[in-house]
Structures are given as C-alpha cells and as structure tokens.
C-alpha cells in the first residue's frame, strides 16, 4: 500500500526555486529518509506533503488524500514534528500531551505513551526544564498522540549529543515496529544508514537518487580499498591479475589495493597462497557519507556526471 505518492512537485518562493522537480513514493511500514545539503528543498518537500504549503505544480497524494485540499482530514491521520517548533515554556509534560490529545478524534492513551517512552518521571516538569533529549522525546510523543498512520520527523536529532541521538533512533525503530510509516528528514548520514529502508537524496530541488542505503553506496562509490603491509616483498602483478582489483599502489612498505566485489577475500587468498602475511590490514568500506558526497558534490558546478544521478544537472541557487 502506497502511503505517500508525489509526482513532479515544484515549489517556488518568488524568484527562488526551492523544489524544482521531485517525485517519490513511500510504502506502508517503511522508514523513508530524505537526505540533502542545506537548502536542497527537504523541508519544503515535506511541508507540501503535510499540506502546510501549496505546491506550485505536481500532484501529491498522502493516505489517499490531497494534502492541500483535504489538509484538515489529513492532519487527523498524521503526526508531525516540525523543525524548530516548541511548546509554551511553562506547560508541563502531561499537560502538553493532554492538550494535544484533545485535537484528535481517537487519541492514544497518553499515560501509556509516557510510560513507554520513559518520561513518566518527568510528567510534572515544565517544558523549559527538560533536557534536549527529553524535549525530542516529548515531540515524538506529541506526534504520536493522535494514533497517526504516518509520522513526519524533520531534523529530529539536530542539536542532540551522540548518546541522545542513538537513543532517539531506537525510539524511531519502535514507532515503525508499531506499524506506523515514518518519513524522516535528516542531514546525518549515519542516521539515515542506520534507520532508513530507503533514502532519497535531493540536491538543488531535484532528486539525485532513491535507493536503500547500501544500494546508494554501491551505486555511488562502488570502489573499496584494502591497505596492508606485506611481510615479504610483493610482486604487484599478483594483485593486478585479480578480476576484483582495479588499481594497486605501493608507497614504501605499504600497499593499497582498490577494487570492487569481494575484494578483501580475493586479496587475502592470493597472499595466503604465497605465504605472505598482511600486517596492519585495513579495509575502507565506503559509507553513506562517501556516497552522499559523490552524489551531490559535483552538481553545483554543473558537471552532473555522478553515478546514479538523474538526467542533467540543473544549477539552482541554494537558499
């Protein structure tokens, strides 16, 4: 079942094109990530999905509804965490939950939400006295209090320390385990790699790639690297002869082998056959970080030749 279907979305603010041409769809039960550099159009895209902004062109369907025309009906069925939106400082945790549950026809029992999310001890604490992590936890709870079918989380972990960020990831996985589809906007690669089933990379208002995190990595950065110090002099041709190897470089006693496929196994097998021990063996696995840089870095200069890039780079100014 398709929860979000966006086709050829376009949104301009005056002369500035925030979203040029974005299409994607999200299936039920997915954690779908939107990644992109600052000003790429991530937030504008989700705000159109939520019905908070009206698209200039394109068609959107969320839970079978038109987000703009049926905004109110849609917002009864989705939970939204917006970037930089707070609640009054003196409002207590339980009061915020009670208030937000009054906005929905079939709210969840917020008392259980408090227990489940480990904030029961902070029940009577005013919002201003919560730590950053506790505030984020409360925001997720507020997004969940209306028993939504879809939650949209925009830059949820920005400004959190690494531990609080990891804790938040576990919570998001629990949300999905409860059958809720999650649309996640982030600029943390590690977060997308860890959480998302599929990731859409957008840059300058256009889709660069949509794939699973591992799919993105192998498409954008197919090359792996293996580095080691051989215990005995090594003939370069032993390695260059392997089908997995694309390049070998030797600096002093260090050898660096680049290639793809099961590179590590191929290299170590050859070394073993020649009774050479690889000391200080290191494997550089490309991460989503590398993939992201490869996918987006060349675009602003107009070359647009990144692997997996959609046809033709368009140079739109960043906001």
């Amino acid at each position, binding site marked *: 079942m398709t929860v979000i279907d966006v086709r050829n979305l376009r949104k301009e603010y005056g002369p500035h094109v925030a979203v040029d041409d974005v299409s994607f769809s999200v299936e039920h039960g997915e954690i779908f990530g939107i990644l992109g550099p600052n000003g790429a159009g991530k937030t504008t895209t989700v705000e159109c999905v939520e019905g908070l902004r009206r698209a200039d062109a394109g068609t959107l369907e969320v839970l079978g509804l038109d987000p703009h025309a049926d905004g109110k009906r849609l917002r009864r069925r989705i939970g939204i965490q917006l970037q930089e939106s707070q*609640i009054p400082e003196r409002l207590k945790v339980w*009061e915020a939950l009670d208030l937000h549950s009054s906005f929905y026809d079939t709210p969840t029992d917020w008392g259980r939400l408090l227990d489940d999310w480990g904030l029961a001890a902070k029940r009577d604490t005013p919002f201003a006295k919560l730590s950053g992590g506790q505030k984020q936890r409360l925001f997720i709870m507020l997004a969940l209090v209306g028993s939504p079918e879809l939650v949209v989380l925009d830059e949820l972990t920005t400004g959190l320390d690494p531990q609080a960020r990891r804790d938040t990831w576990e919570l998001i996985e629990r949300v999905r385990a409860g059958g809720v589809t999650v649309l996640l906007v982030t600029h943390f690669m590690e977060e997308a790699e860890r959480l998302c089933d599929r990731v859409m990379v957008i840059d300058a208002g256009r889709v660069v790639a949509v794939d699973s995190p591992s799919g993105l990595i192998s498409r954008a950065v197919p090359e792996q690297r293996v580095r080691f110090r051989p215990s005995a002099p090594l003939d370069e041709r032993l390695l260059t002869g392997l089908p997995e190897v694309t390049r070998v470089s030797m600096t002093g006693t260090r050898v660096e082998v680049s290639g793809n496929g099961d590179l590590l196994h191929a290299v170590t097998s050859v070394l073993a056959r020649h009774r050479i021990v690889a000391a200080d063996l290191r494997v550089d696995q490309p991460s989503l970080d590398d993939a992201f840089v490869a996918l987006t870095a060349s675009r602003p200069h107009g070359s647009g030749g990144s692997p997996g890039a959609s046809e033709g780079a368009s140079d739109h100014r960043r906001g």
Partner: protein
Amino acid sequence: MTALTKYELKLFLRDPAATLIVLVLPVGIVALFGVVMSPGGGDAIETFFPSAAIALGLGQLGMNLLPSTMAGYREKGILRRMAGTPVHPAALLGAQLVVGALFALVSMALVVAVGVVAFGFGPPGSIPAFLLTFVLGVMSLFAVGLLVASIAPSGRVATGIGVAVFFVSIVFGGVFMPVESLPAFIADVGDFTPLGAFMRALRASWAGAWPEPLHLGVMAVVALGFSLLSAKMFRWE
C-alpha cells in the same frame, strides 16, 4: 478548543508578571488613592481614580501582554506546531483573547468592588453605559494588541512596541493625569485614541452619564478596523 482555553488560562496564571499587572496593580492603585483621597464628596475627580486603575490594567493587558505572548508564540514556532495538527493556530489566538477578556472582567470587577466597598468610591452611576464601555474598551484595546502582534517580528519587539504605545496612550488618554489638567491640544488628540476614548467613557458612565458618541465610535472603529487589518497582516510563522 475548550482544552486550549483551559491551558491558556493555566499559563496566564503561571506568569507572575501578568497577574501582577492585570490584577494586583489596578487594585493597588484604587486602594492607594482610596486611602489618600478619602472619597465620598462627589467631586468629579473621584471618577478618575477607579477609571484610571481599570484603564491601566486593561491597557497593559491589551497593548503589551497579549501581543508579546502572541508574537512569542510565533517566534518559538508554537503557532507553526499547531498548524501541523487538525486544529488551526487561530484557535490558539482565540483562546488567548478569551482568557484575556476573562482577566479583564475580573480586573474590572475587583477594582469596582474594592474601590466601592473598602474605600468609599461611588459605584458606576450608569451600569448599562459602564458595561457597554467595558466591552467596547476591551475589544478596541485587544484589537490594538492584535495589530502589534501582526507587525512585530518577535516577542521582544512586540513588548517594545506595546510599551511605547501604552505610555503614549496613557499620557494622551488622560490616564496618567486627569484630562481636566491636560493642555487642550493633548486632550483633543486623546479623544481619538482607543485608551483615551475608553478612559473618558468610563468616567462619564461612572458619573452616571451616557458616554459621548465620539468615544464609543472611536472604540468601535478601532475594534473593527484593527481586527480586520491584523486578520490581513498576521503571519503564522
């Protein structure tokens, strides 16, 4: 909607400055002048003190507290967050106006009760005129606040504009000093300000007369005009 009003009421009560300005200060003023003046002689100036106490409290509430809170709510993204729920953020502003009106009513009632019962000020002579004046006054002062909230980009700027508007208003409006002792030019300008019209209409109804149509008209026009203007200009984020 009712839950929103309930929590806005709680938040208002948790703000010590708000209770101080809207409730404690007006009652304090009427008590202070009750002690100093020992009223009861029926002098025209006796309508000044309780009227000024009410006008000060309501002026601060409408021109300063309300716009600061509203602009602050926008600045902190509280209105934006509301926009992501099934309830429109206008309901939040509506709840604030309801809570503000409730406190205006309590403030007015306390000033009248304390002034009359404890300090011997005469009660308002014309109750219908007094109530009409109160309703129009609250609406016009809140409309000024809404407009300030529409213009100000942040809570701090709203406070700044609100305080400035308030002080100019009390001088021109005959709240700081009785209109009798103001230069004619200042008094004439004050006739056309919402707080000045409110103050004069309060004193007239307190003396038992019907307020001048000019003053009722100024309040009505400001209430309607400024509300429409802010409805057009208000930004939710």
